[in-house]
């Protein structure tokens, strides 16, 4: 009888686990309900590498404008297009002295936005150094400035087309429910992210490093093995690496693209557009592990006088040890504060009447 109960329990658990893994909505529901551990609570690089020397609990940073009444803030609307550094839990409106703040990701396209003409509208184009060559290699327009929100224009469609659209739409939903491509990641999260299991993963990771000098393919170590980086930062086969060769011609193109983007957004109604490239962890902590391409410094030199740039590179190199988290690709609270302060200072500067 007990055997049957155990088998039954395993059976139910296995199907339930499979359902959580395969179904995106179900997985995210459990995450929202806090029924699953936060996957990156010890940092993204710890999650990838499982090396105990890079394990540290992530703590939120104090926000300077937390609880400050918005009426006491500057009459500025700050819009940004950013990457993981500007994710909401890292940066939000409580970090800025402005009445309005909105961020979208570079992957978001044609996001309809109505600019409040009673405010000074500023746009911030932010990207991490590792993505600069991809992002600034083209002229993207992620915000679509409109007078009023537009719905999809109605087009006459045949019955067959409508049926085809209906099938496509439902098929897409069905796939999300049953065949999400991230199933393996979800299952790994559900089963192996509990604190009591981490020592097992850490043993494997340490064994592989000590015996075979290898780490997870998403990570790489500095030569002195004191720092951990996202693999793209150091893989010279990719344009994301700070050690990849970068020709002046490409830099000229990037500056020209950013300039065109800024002009386009200014035509759409933004009073000012500023740019920020946040250095890669490897550029700051291990610039001599390879031939550093000095992307940020060279970009800033070429862009001088053309558009305003938030400069954090200099301060980051002066405070190498404190700006990046040991367990993460992103900054520490100290590093974040430098960026926030420099950004607000630059906005103050560009808004100052000349």
């Amino acid at each position: 009888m007990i055997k049957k109960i155990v088998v039954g329990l395993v059976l139910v658990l296995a199907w339930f686990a499979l359902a959580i893994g395969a179904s995106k909505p179900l997985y995210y529901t459990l995450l929202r309900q806090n029924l699953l551990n936060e996957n990156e609570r010890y940092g993204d690089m710890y999650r990838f590498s499982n090396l105990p020397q890079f394990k540290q609990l992530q703590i939120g940073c104090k926000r300077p404008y937390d609880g400050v009444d918005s009426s006491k803030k500057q009459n500025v609307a700050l819009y940004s297009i950013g990457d993981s550094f500007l994710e909401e839990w890292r940066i939000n409106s409580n970090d800025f002295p402005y009445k309005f703040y909105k961020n979208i990701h570079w992957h978001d396209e044609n996001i309809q936005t109505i600019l409040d003409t009673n405010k000074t509208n500023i746009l911030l184009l932010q990207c991490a150094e590792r993505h600069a060559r991809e992002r600034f290699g083209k002229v993207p327009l992620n915000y679509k400035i409109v007078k009023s929100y537009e719905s999809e224009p109605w087009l006459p469609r045949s019955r067959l087309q409508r049926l085809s659209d209906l099938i496509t739409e439902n098929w897409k939903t069905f796939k999300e429910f049953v065949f999400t491509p991230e199933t393996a990641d979800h299952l790994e999260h559900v089963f192996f992210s509990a604190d009591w299991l981490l020592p097992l993963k850490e043993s494997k990771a340490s064994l592989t490093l000590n015996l075979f000098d290898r780490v997870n393919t998403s990570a790489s170590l500095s030569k002195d093995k004191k720092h951990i980086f996202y693999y793209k930062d150091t893989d010279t086969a990719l344009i994301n690496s700070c050690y990849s060769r970068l020709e002046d011609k490409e830099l000229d193109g990037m500056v020209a693209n950013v300039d065109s983007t800024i002009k386009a957004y200014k035509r759409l109604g933004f009073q000012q557009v500023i740019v920020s490239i946040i250095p890669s962890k490897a550029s700051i902590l291990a610039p001599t592990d390879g031939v550093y391409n000095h992307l940020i410094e060279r970009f800033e030199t070429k862009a001088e006088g053309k558009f305003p740039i938030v400069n954090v590179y200099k301060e980051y190199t002066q405070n190498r040890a404190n700006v990046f988290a040991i367990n993460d690709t992103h900054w520490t609270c100290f590093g974040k504060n430098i960026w926030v302060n420099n950004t607000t200072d630059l906005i103050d500067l560009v808004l100052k009447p000349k």
Partner: protein
Amino acid sequence: MIFNSFQFIIFFIAVSLTYYALNPRFRWLLLLVASCYFYMAFVPEYILILFLTIIIDYIAGIFIEKSTGSNRKLLLIISLISNIGILAIFKYYNFFTENLAAIVELVSGKTFHFKTLDEFLSFLNFSGKILLPIGLSFHTFQAMSYTIEVYRGKFPAEKHFGIYALYVMFYPQLVAGPIERPQHVLPQLKMHHSFDFENIKAGLMRMAWGFFKKVVFADRVGLMVDAAFAHQSLQSQSSSTLLMATFLYSFQIYCDFSGYCDIALGSAKVLGINLMENFQTPYSSKSIGEFWRRWHISLSSWFKDYVYFSLGGSRVGLSRTYINVMIIFLLSGFWHGNTWNFVLWGAIHGFYLIFGQIRDKYFGEIDTSGIKKYLHLLATFVLVMLAWIFFRAENLNDSLFILKKILLFDFSQPFLSAINTNELIFSFLLLAVILWKEKYFNRISTKSDVKFYLLFSCFVLVSYLFGVFQAKQFIYFQF
């Protein structure tokens, strides 16, 4: 869904437990739904292609059985053309059009471009990149073996659509074989398999052995092989690096594919179903002919039974026999992939075999007594290993470059390895263990519970601690 994923382990536990908990009358339905899910986890839409072939062959089987004479033959031809047609469109369309364009260009002196499959379908308003449906060559051949067997009157047409669909789709062997025959599998799918703990233990042990070969050995040496064979860095590789990579690739592909087969056979065994063995220690072969009787047995026997014998086999004249051998190997190469590399790989093996037959004819069968046995073993391995270069390299130029570099023994450039010396030594130790005790591991007796629990836990622990987990697909999945 790939076997070496955690998703598969959960899926396998869920399906196997439900299988035995279910009324035997409905087990086929569970396995069919599970197989659909297993296949759809790769690219869900491709299930439609699979079902199209299933429907065609199911109907063809019934009508072939009912008809006689030329009608019977016509129905078989229609069924074969449908199967080969689908394979040709998805696997060989681009190969044919590229080569046709090259010929036209050569003759006319003008650049010519045929639409690729993607372009052709985008022309018909289909968006998205066309990928080769996973395991297409495998299940197409399995489906064809059914209609041929029905045509030959060796097996009655299956009337139950669900059971027939399951024969083609049975998840353990759906994407990379073994390519089964209807008389072996279909009756087993209809049988009521009662829970037998001996089967479960034997199946689980076979699976654990397969996982071990795949994640601990094949994927580990794969790190070195992939880096050495990469087109971008090929020019800077030394003879020693390429020789080592080719040597290790010979065992990587073996452990990868036989590891897959072990998992397939083991997971079917847990359900009470026995699939055919696909390997019999192939690197202990003393001739190329013997190698092909031990390597990918289900494919070799498929070609032998349905093509070679149909062409007359060895009952025709000597030169026709050699031509038949070459046809089989060219087809086998082409079956593996849609590039000239694979065709050449097949041709090399065809040549080896013909050369061996000529040698046997004029000099008598090879003497494998004493030390000569080991010399033949070594010679066979070297020949097979050199042919693998064409199988692994990214294109024909790369293959020839690697072959030339190896044969030149140019050791001026340093030996480069993507894995460190410790890992290289560890890989060789693993290889020694695998080859030394291969027969034992393939058939570990699980009669003793203690031995089972001990060895199984050992395999699981070692696979976890020393496994390379990068969700790397099995090499044969691409075919």
